C-alpha cells in the first residue's frame, strides 16, 4: 500500500457496511499507516441507508469525513445514486449490481472513474454466504486496487473475527469469490 486512500462504503443498515469498512481500516493499521474510521451514526442505521468513511494515509489525517472518495463501495441503489457522483476522477467504484442498477440510475460518475459491477448479494446467496456480500465486495476491491498483500488481509480478517472464529473461513471464502469474479 503506497498511496492515500479515501474510502466510502455505503448501503442498507445490516449489510455490513461498517464491518467492511473496519476490515479495511485494520488492514491499514497492520500496514503501519495512519487510519481513521468514521461511521454515519444517525438514524440512518438499521434499515435506512448507512455509510462509513475510512481514510488511510502515510501522514497524519486531517478530516476523517470523506467528501470525495477515491474508492467507493455502493451496496444498494440509493447509495449508488447518492455517492457515485462524488468519486474523484481516477477513483474506482464497486457496485453490488444485485441491488443497484448503475445503467438505470440518473446519477453518473465523473470522467476517469472506473466502475466495477458485481452481483455480490446474488453471489452470497448462491454460495451459502448470506450476509457476506460486503466481504465479497471487499475481495473485488482488494484485487482491483492491490490494496494489501494476501498475508495482511488474512491477518486483518483474524483480528476482526476474533471471538467468532467460525466466521473466519466463511469470510475468507467470500473474499476469494469476490476476487475471482
Amino acid at each position: 500500500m503506497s498511496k492515500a486512500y479515501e474510502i466510502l462504503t455505503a448501503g442498507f443498515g445490516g449489510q455490513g457496511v461498517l464491518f467492511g469498512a473496519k476490515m479495511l481500516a485494520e488492514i491499514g493499521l497492520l500496514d503501519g499507516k495512519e487510519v481513521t474510521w468514521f461511521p454515519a451514526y444517525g438514524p440512518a442505521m438499521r434499515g435506512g441507508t448507512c455509510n462509513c468513511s475510512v481514510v488511510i494515509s502515510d501522514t497524519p489525517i486531517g478530516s476523517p469525513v470523506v467528501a470525495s472518495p477515491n474508492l467507493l463501495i455502493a451496496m444498494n441503489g440509493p447509495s449508488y445514486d447518492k455517492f457515485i457522483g462524488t468519486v474523484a476522477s481516477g477513483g474506482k467504484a464497486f457496485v453490488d449490481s444485485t441491488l443497484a442498477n448503475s445503467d438505470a440510475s440518473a446519477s453518473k460518475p465523473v470522467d476517469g472513474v472506473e466502475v466495477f459491477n458485481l452481483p455480490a448479494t446474488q453471489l452470497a446467496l448462491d454460495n451459502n454466504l448470506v450476509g457476506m456480500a460486503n466481504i465479497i465486495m471487499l475481495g473485488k476491491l482488494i484485487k482491483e486496487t492491490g490494496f494489501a498483500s494476501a498475508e495482511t488481509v488474512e491477518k486483518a480478517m483474524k483480528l476482526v473475527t476474533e471471538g467468532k472464529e467460525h466466521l473466519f473461513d466463511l469470510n475468507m471464502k467470500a473474499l476469494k469469490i469476490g476476487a475471482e469474479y
Partner: protein
Amino acid sequence: MNKVLMKGNEACAEAAIRSGCKSYFGYPITPQNEITAYMSKALPKIDGGVFVQAESEIGAIHMVYGCAGSGVRCMTSSSSPGISLKAEGISYLAGADLPCVIVNIQRGGPGLGTIQPSQADYFQATKAIGHGDLKIPTLAPNSVQEMVDMTVKAFEIAEKYRTPVMILADGLLGQMMEPVSFGNIKNNAEVYPYGANGHGGKRKKNITNSLYLDALVLEKCVNERFERYTKIVEAETDAEFDKDADIVVAAYGSTSRVVKSAVEMARAEGINAGVFRPKTLWPFPEKQLKEATKNAKAVLVSEMSMGQMIDDVKMALEFKLPVEFYGRQGGFVPNPVEIFKKIKELGGKY
C-alpha cells in the same frame, strides 16, 4: 507500542479504568453511549468496580458528588442536553472542592438539537458550567489518542487542584475509530485524605459541604479557590501552534484537524498560514496565542457553532488584530476546502 483500533468513547473509558477509576455513574445519550456501555461491561469485572446507570443525568452527577465526597476517584459522561441537566451537581462539586471527571461528547443544540457533532457548548463549559463563581479546567482532545491521554491528565488535574475537570469532545471524536496506544498508564488512584468515609473517631471529621451562610467564611473560601485557579492557569494551560504565520487559524477539537488540512492547502498555494490549537479551553492559552500571532496579519477562528471561542481569541488579542469566523452548525463538520477558501479570502484582504 501495540496499537488497537478503537472508538474515541471506548478509548476514553478504557483509559479511565487503567488510570484507576473504578466508579462510573451515567445515563445513556447519543453520541456518548459507548462510554456508558463500556463501563457497564468492564467495571463489574473489576474488584471494587461500581457501575450505576442512574435514573437521570441529575441522579448520575449527584452520585458522583457522593462518591467523590467519600474520597473515591470517579467520573460521569454525557452529551450536551445531559450536561445541562448536570449543571447543578457540577456547581455543588466545585463548591465542595471535590475532584471528578466529566466527559461531554457534544452534539448539536439548543434543546435536543441533533445527535450529530457540534462544538456549541464552549460557552457552557468555559463560562457558565453551573451557578456561582467557578471555573472548571476544560480539556479539548482532537484524536482518539488524546481521548486517552487527556482522560488520564484530567484525573491528575482534578485531584491535584480538588476540582471537577471536563473533557470537551464531540460526536466525531466519540464515534470515530483510530489506532490508539495505552502506553504505560499508571493506576495512581488513591482514596483522597479529605473524603468523608467513616473513621470510627480516629481522626478529625471530614465535612463535604458547599453551604456557607457566613459571608466572611464564603468569601474566604471563594478566594482560596481562585488562588488554586491561578495555579491552574500557570501550570496547566496548553496549546500547540505554528510560529510566524501571516494568517493564523484558531480551532480546537475535531475542527482543528480539518483546519490543519486547510492550512496545508493554503501553504501549497504560497499563503503563509498556520494553526493555533488550544488543548485547554479553560484556562484559555492567551500567552501562546499572542506568541502564535506575533507577526500575523489576521486571525480566522473556525468552530462547529455560530462562534464562541472567537470571543476568547479576541479578548486574548486585546482586539488588536482582525479576527474573522468560519463555522458550520446543525451537525455538519466543515470540510477542508470550505476553510481553505476562507483562508484565501483573508490572505487577499489583509
